[in-house]
């Protein structure tokens, strides 16, 4: 009897409770991507893209935009324009215009961090130009733009063309003492979207960018990588030789930093990176199957990249952004008291950084 009673009660609960809080999938608008632009009077313009899967309409996605004091303020405005219940749970991409990022992204990022429904895996990217226009435009030969951007960013970060920049990484680097956040930059190019480089931040403020051609080098200097390809014109370095060109893929690298302190001198940091790759293309006079020749090519690649790396680091120091996380290693090399006494942002531009890159050709393809 008792058992029957409890069973009945359980069944009744099961029948009644689902009615308490129900959602119908077709009536929910899962925002997939959002864009943020500057608007007059210290306001922000927000654009959102919502995929629609309704067989009765020939619509791929719904687009809304509004201007407001904050992102949530704008959200209230465009939620009046749609019949869908807007939710943030499936946001994958957040696009910020360079202009907005140059001011400061603190408010925008914090409002996203507070929202429990937004995943820490949401990708963050800057846009060279107007972010809303980039997101709202339909690119003929590509998927729905929001998905196109998401996949482009995902693929590029796997290939180390851009650093992996999800909300988690962005926030982590913001709070970490000795490193500054970075984010990729996208731009519209005719009928495509393309990578425009890597945006360097100080706190949540966008300071400068490094061009796309240095992207892989930047990844190698920033930490361990496992994929990526690079093409180099060796002739630009060795002006004597004729046309010499190399392209290698499947780059695997690791990075080490050694910090030395000498009294009276600025901190000395040696950044060591060893990387290996498979040569897929080589145009030049040397024969890769010969050990001596191959070592010569390896040496040239190492030298060229070392000098480019040194130039890149100088550039970062000039902008006073520690995007490579040199500060973390400097911090870990001293006592807590010394680190606190050191004003890293003042010290950083004076640090002597010496990059040493070593390339090794793992293999050189099917021909000798």
């Amino acid at each position: 009897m008792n058992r029957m009673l409890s069973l009945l009660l359980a069944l009744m609960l099961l029948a009644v409770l689902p009615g308490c809080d129900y959602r119908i999938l077709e009536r929910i608008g899962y925002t997939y991507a959002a864009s943020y632009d500057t608007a007059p009077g210290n306001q922000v313009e927000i654009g959102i893209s919502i995929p629609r899967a309704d067989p009765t309409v020939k619509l791929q996605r719904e687009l809304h935009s509004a201007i407001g004091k904050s992102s949530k303020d704008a959200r209230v405005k465009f939620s009046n324009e749609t019949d869908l219940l807007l939710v943030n749970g499936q946001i994958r991409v957040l696009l910020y215009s360079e202009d907005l990022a140059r001011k400061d992204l603190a408010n925008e990022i914090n409002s996203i961090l507070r929202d429990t429904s937004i995943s820490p895996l949401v990708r963050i990217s800057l846009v060279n130009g107007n972010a809303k226009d980039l997101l709202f435009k339909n690119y003929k030969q590509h998927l729905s733009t929001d998905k196109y951007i998401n996949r482009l960013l995902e693929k590029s970060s796997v290939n180390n063309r851009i650093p992996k920049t999800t909300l988690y990484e962005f926030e982590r680097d913001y709070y970490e003492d000795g490193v500054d956040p970075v984010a990729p930059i996208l731009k519209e190019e005719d009928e495509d979207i393309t990578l425009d480089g890597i945006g360097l931040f100080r706190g949540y403020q966008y300071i400068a960018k490094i061009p796309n051609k240095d992207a892989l080098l930047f990844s190698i200097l920033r930490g361990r990588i496992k994929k990526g390809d690079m093409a180099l014109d060796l002739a630009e370095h060795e002006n004597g030789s004729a046309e010499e060109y190399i392209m290698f893929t499947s780059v695997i690298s690791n990075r080490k930093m050694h910090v030395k302190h000498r009294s009276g001198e600025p901190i000395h940091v040696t950044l060591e990176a060893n990387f290996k790759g498979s040569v897929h293309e080589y145009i030049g006079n040397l024969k890769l199957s010969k050990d001596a020749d191959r070592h010569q090519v390896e040496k040239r690649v190492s030298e060229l990249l070392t000098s480019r790396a040194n130039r890149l680091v100088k550039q970062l120091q000039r902008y006073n952004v520690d995007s490579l996380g040199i500060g973390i290693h400097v911090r870990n090399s001293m006592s807590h008291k010394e680190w606190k006494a050191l004003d890293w942002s003042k010290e950083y531009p004076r640090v002597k950084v010496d990059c040493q890159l070593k390339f090794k050709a793992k293999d050189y393809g099917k021909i000798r």
Partner: protein
Amino acid sequence: MIPMEKKEKLSPFHTTILVFMIQSGVMALILPQLLAETFGTNGWITVLGFGFVASINIFLIAAVYKLGKGRSIFQILEQSIPKFMLIPFYLALALVWTLLGCMAGKEYILIFQMYAFPTTNPMEFKLIMDLLVFWLLTKGLYNITKASTIFFWLFSWLVLLLFFFYADFSWTRLTPFLFKEGHFTYLESLDIYSSFLGYEIVILLFAYTNQKTKLIKSTLLGNLITTVMYCYLALITFGVYSLGQLKNKAFPVLEMMAYIRFPFIERMENLLYGFILFTVLFSILMYEWCALEMLKQVFPKLKANFLAFMLILSCFIVAYIPETLNEVGDWLSTLSMIECGIAFGLPFLLLIVLMFQKMGSRTAHE
């Protein structure tokens, strides 16, 4: 005929698991943040210290177990102290334990609701949870321990999810500094310690054990599992998040779960939150069970199931009072502080009583 034990006794394995399940609870979700806030860099190491303190407390209970020769605490107390004096004491303990279970339940529900079903009335969830607690409660301790073993297996695989963070874990992020940039307060360290609470209820298990249970050994082992788990969890959180970020997170462990992504499913953390219920459920259940044991002593004539029903009903009604997460957090903090006192005070009290009894018996023999 082979002499058979009349009543079933707890097995060591079940006891270990039970202790672990009671200890690990809703506080584990906040633990890394508290560690970062209180101890700063490398705060995860202190987990071992807290675990050690808990072990000392368990040794205290062991002394009671040994000196009392396995008698239940009621037998020990009632031998020396008249019952009418003990009744308010029993009732006070029952009240603390009821409220503790009740608030832990409400806290879990409110946290869960931040992520799922935010507009549903939290008391609807509480009702279901309390029903579950009630049903388990009426089944008796032996069945509870068996159920806890099953729930343990349902829950324990979550530990494997920490593998996901190995890629983002970085030793350099841990920094070589020990306990810097923290803000130590006794109040917060008590909060941290409260995430270890739960082992102290074994003091009520004496009557359900025999030699084979190896009660103290099993409890220590359960506490060790909790400590190692917490330490591992805290280490990973400290290596995945930067210190400032961790300090700023309300529920770092929940957020870490959101970071897990499978190729075929994204945003699966809402599914995972549900699994945490299993361990939270047993923390609640066992506190309610303790309260019930107390009530049984106070009202020996009433039926246990009726008492259990009244207990859960009052627990449900009290849960209406605090409405926000902060209010519940405050209640829980205060209650855990009292519970810390009970965890150390009760065995002390019993030891004193036992000492008097021993002296009394010695003089009687002389």
